[in-house]
């Protein structure tokens, strides 16, 4: 069992997310994360899906995804050279005079931006690979994380290679 990263090209159509997520649910596949948005191709969206399973399970996931009419292309890019990034917003306790300066220090080490400052809290915005966000979250926990939102990672092949419709 390991995490596989799938880059999926789909029709940008109502119901396509339901079809994809419904397929995972009814066939008992575990989604770790799913991120979706429009692409450079007209009428198509890209999804990055992280799925946990052994090779046979993931092969079955990909075949089943491919059967969906609205799915144009499925690539397992786990073993490829990739850039993967995730965005997180973290609201953390940071009272002036006590922990605020320490939080800001940590933020700067992680190259996180402070996007909101309240009386007792700050909101950090951080982008990076999921491991970096995990690490930041862990460090901030001592101050009290009030709210955390992650987008799920998006992934792209390095170099000139791209995930394009072939069929």
């Amino acid at each position: 069992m390991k995490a596989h990263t799938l880059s999926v090209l789909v029709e940008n159509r109502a119901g396509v997310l339901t079809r994809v997520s419904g397929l995972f649910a009814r066939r008992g596949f575990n989604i770790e994360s799913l991120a979706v948005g429009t692409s450079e191709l007209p009428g198509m969206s890209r999804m990055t899906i992280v799925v946990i399973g052994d090779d046979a399970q993931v092969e079955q996931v990909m075949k089943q995804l491919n059967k969906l009419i609205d799915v144009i292309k499925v690539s397992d890019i786990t073993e490829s050279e990739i850039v993967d990034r995730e965005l997180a917003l973290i609201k953390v306790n940071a009272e002036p005079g006590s922990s605020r300066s320490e939080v800001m220090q940590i933020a700067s080490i992680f190259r996180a931006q402070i996007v909101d400052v309240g009386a007792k809290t700050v909101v950090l915005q951080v982008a990076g690979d999921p491991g970096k966000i995990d690490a930041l979250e862990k460090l901030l926990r001592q101050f009290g994380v009030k709210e955390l939102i992650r987008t799920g990672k998006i992934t792209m092949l390095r170099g000139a290679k791209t995930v394009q419709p072939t069929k």
Partner: protein
Amino acid sequence: MKTGAKILVEGLQREGVDTIFGYPGGVILPVYDELYDSPIRHILVRHEQAAAHAADGYARASGRVGVCMATSGPGACNLVTGIATAYMDSVPMVALTGQVPTSLLGNDAFQEADITGITLPITKHSYLVKRTVDVDRVVQEAFFIARTGRPGPVLVDLPKDVTAGQIEEVPPLPEKVHLRGYQPTLKGHTRQIDKAIELIEKAERPVIYAGGGIITSEASGEMVQLAERLLCPVTTTLMGLGSIPCDHPLNLGMLGMHGTVYANYAVTESDLLIALGVRFDDRVTGKLPTFAPHAQIIHVDIDPAEIGKNKKVDVPIVGDVRSVLQVMLNRLKKRDDRKQWLTRIRAWMRKHPLSYKSDGCLRPQYVIQELSNLLKGEGIIVSEVGQNQMWTAQWYCFRKPRSWLSSGGLGTMGYGFPAAIGAHFARPDETVVDIAGDGSFQMNIQELGTVAANNIPVKVVILNNMFLGMVRQWQELFYDHRYSYTELPPVDFVGIAKAYGIDGIRVEQCEEVPSALRTMIETDGPFLLDVRIEREENVFPMVPAGAAINEMIGGHVVPERELELAAAEEGDVTFRPGRKAA
């Protein structure tokens, strides 16, 4: 100006639809109004589930796309079982449903149900059409998707304002549908075919395991040719019955849970399994690790997701099985050195024939055998689900593809009678017989109304044991004879048929069977036989769920002495399937 309904009905005609099975209601009214003047025939069923099964029966009997139609909400929901049945057995179908107007979508309006949502896991694809201008394109795509690749049901949900709405001009359609996310692989990969041929040439104990894909791709001729060329025995799944004539010397009959002993033994001892248009269903394989344990496996299927899903295979070939077989046949040489393997199988056939007691009691196997003799394996036989289905699969001598319609994957009780109605409209010159149980028949018994109203000449043989027989059999074998809620009180089926104006006979004695069957077949219109069979007859042989397929129970074993006598009479390597009244 054209309404969406008019565009829809014209689209159906363009797709070659001649019959729709349906049931009207509020929001589908614009379509029904259009049908009023249309050359398309509409058969009014008595329950929407029957419309879906009838469309399914029409499709299986003809190979064309079956069409059913219902209104929104309850009407659409009643189609669900029929759509799921078609999905599991890869049947081409288009289901048209009415929907509340787009302005009310999501408002919990009267008779609103999210039918595209409900049917998402049981359709090949679905459409909720939101604009009249899209109707024509959607119809074209729906039929294309339903009938190509691995066929399946497609649902088209039509809000009332979309069908009632008018547009000035219908946009022209492409000559060929192009969907960038849907391009089935039809041609098998050359290198994979090379590998398959290499294995076939080396194999000493090959078995062909043929399924519904052979019927769908119309590859029976090629498959039988392959078997004869290689002198390779063939076993079929429930869905593959009819792909090779029952009395073909290389036919081992059905394999799996209620398959023949010799088919299961042959698969277990084979060194090469040639799997054609099959999906290694649990009812076929039993315990997976012990299924064909000595065999290398070649698997040909049009759906890549079926390959390696349940069983690891050595040579996967994605493609249309007919086209793949044609390529193989061009390259495979005739074999005549199969004597040892065929002799071994013949010995199993002699020792473990299918059998039943012929003690003068009215046994269901006898009824089916008599029907088979009477029709000479012609006609279209439809079954319900349960014991009636398995006895028919074992004892009816199917000779042609599309002569056997049965709910295999989903196992839908109540499928047979409406599917028989559909089959009649697909092939009106054929005799259509539904072999039913008293439990299954009562699940769609209301269709006697449809049959009577249209004088549809379908025949029903109820193998009536006043039990939900298959469940009772499991209770007998695995639940210590505790018949929990499986006994059904006697019903006067002939009386019910008569109330609808349909003729019927009750049969209670063995001797009455041949003449009653003849009367049924010779009657012009619909006919019902209520056959009171031996109540606790079981379907044997049987592989208990989860066991290895060569661990069968209840099979008949011919005593050694009889075997010796038989062996003295026979000499050659050809063999006939063992079917025997002991």
